[in-house]
């Protein structure tokens, strides 16, 4: 069995099948990209993995154990961390306090939590901003804070939801470098991303979906040259 497996997962919102039977496996240590046009169901898949929504059908396995009936906080304790596309900083807390709060997932005393938090802030190059209020951070900092906070819960699998969206080219390179360093720590990553530069550079394998259905899976080159993928992104007649 694999490290992480989504088996025929589906989600229906009333009459809309947002995700209709998507399956994929992720191996330990991999960076697994999830792509698709707007509204194709990428974020919904993340919300299904951490049980923000209950599944309509299918099952999800993490280290050979089904996690589909667990609560969101429980999934974090199991070792799956996530970031949000629409960042959710704890605004009236400082950057450090944000990370300390999440570090308490693994340790119980303030001293240990602070130590872990500072370590993570340093790792993500946010240490100089630690005493600023989370609300005052610019978007790049907020995205970075999301990652730092998720890392402080010591995940084995990290779900990154469009952490590069809205960044300028310089920030983009830093983001790519950070994601690679996270992988080097031994954290497996599933990443949803729109910016092709990011996803094509860092992913080991890519899974493409459209209208909640799988259209392709493979290495970045394979997926980039796949007819279905090109059609989904560029339209019917314009594939090169």
């Amino acid at each position: 069995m694999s490290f992480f497996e989504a088996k025929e997962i589906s989600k229906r919102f009333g009459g809309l099948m947002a995700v209709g039977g998507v399956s994929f496996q992720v191996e330990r240590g991999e960076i697994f990209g999830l792509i698709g046009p707007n509204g194709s169901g990428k974020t919904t898949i993340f919300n299904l993995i951490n049980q923000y929504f209950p599944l309509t059908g299918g099952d999800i396995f993490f280290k050979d154990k089904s996690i589909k009936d667990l609560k969101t906080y429980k999934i974090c304790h199991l070792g799956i961390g996530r970031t949000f596309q629409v960042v959710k900083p704890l605004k009236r807390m400082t950057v450090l306090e944000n990370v300390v709060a999440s570090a308490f997932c693994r340790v119980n005393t303030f001293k240990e939590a602070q130590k872990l938090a500072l370590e993570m802030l340093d790792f993500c190059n946010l240490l100089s901003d630690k005493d600023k209020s989370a609300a005052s951070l610019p978007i790049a900092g907020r995205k970075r804070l999301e990652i730092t906070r998720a890392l402080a819960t010591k995940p084995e699998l990290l779900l990154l939801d469009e952490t590069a969206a809205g960044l300028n080219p310089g920030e983009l390179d830093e983001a790519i470098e950070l994601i690679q360093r996270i992988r080097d720590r031994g954290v497996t990553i599933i990443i949803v991303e729109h910016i092709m530069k990011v996803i094509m550079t860092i992913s080991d394998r890519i899974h493409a979906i459209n209208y909640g259905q799988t259209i392709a899976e493979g290495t970045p080159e394979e997926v980039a040259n796949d007819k279905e993928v090109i059609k989904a992104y560029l339209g019917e007649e314009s594939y090169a």
Partner: protein
Amino acid sequence: MKRNQVIPAIVTLAFILFPLVVRSPYYQHLVILALMWVVIGGSWNLLAGYTGQVSFGHAVFFGTGAYTAGIFASKLGISAWWGMLFGGFTGALVGLLIGWICFRLRGPYFALATIAAGEIFRLIATNWESLTDGMVGILIIQTFRSKLPYYYLALALAAASLLVFEVVMKSKLGFYFVSIREDQDAAESLGINATLYKNISLLISSFFTGMAGAFYMNYMAFIDPEVVFSLHYISIMAILVGIIGGVATIWGPAVGAFIMIGVQETFRSALFGLAPKWTSESHVLVFGLLVIFVILFMANGVVGDWPKIKRLFVRSR
């Protein structure tokens, strides 16, 4: 660091010496009430200010504590002082019951449910005459004629509650409470069991409020449902103490308690007898104006906006 310790030391000393210096029972009485409100306001603030679960029904816990002590004395013949301890536990038990039902919901449902709970408990206390003596109320005999023992008890209770809130807010619990207030979805994804920690916050809050209620029974020696389960004298007052002093600050409710007792007494006594008697009815109106003023100009309360207030005076000089 040193200055940080000097001011609390002076304040503590002042409170310890106060009843020895000021012998007037009237002023001692006011400070005893204010100290009791420090406990209730702080409890409300822990739940509403820090955890973001606004309660309009702290009278439920206050009244439950008061009636626990009262029923101990009047029905069971056990000293009402035992009620001081048990009042906290019964308050917390009621808190758990409400939290267990309401905290699965998000949004304003908890706040709405606490208003309903307050009315339910008032009606139960009014109508269950075999237990509570209904509208007649419960009258016990005060243990001490002097106010001193009550004063020091209230002071100890206030100090203990502040200490507990301070310790809690610097621990894992405190960080979790604030995380839940700021964003429950983010909190859950960071491994925080929001329902559990909301209940823990409510538990601590209702425990201290219940103890304050039991203290009130012992001190005032008379309670009836209209007083201890009152929406406006207890539940709303708890909110005012928190808001005026400063929501989500440790010292805010403590300062707020003294301000509110001061304002209430000033107007209840018709400006200490200087104004016509009918003005004594105006204290509710004044509370309303005070809230409007605080929300408009000092949204973080006296303690939260202290730097702003200080600046105002320094500049005008």
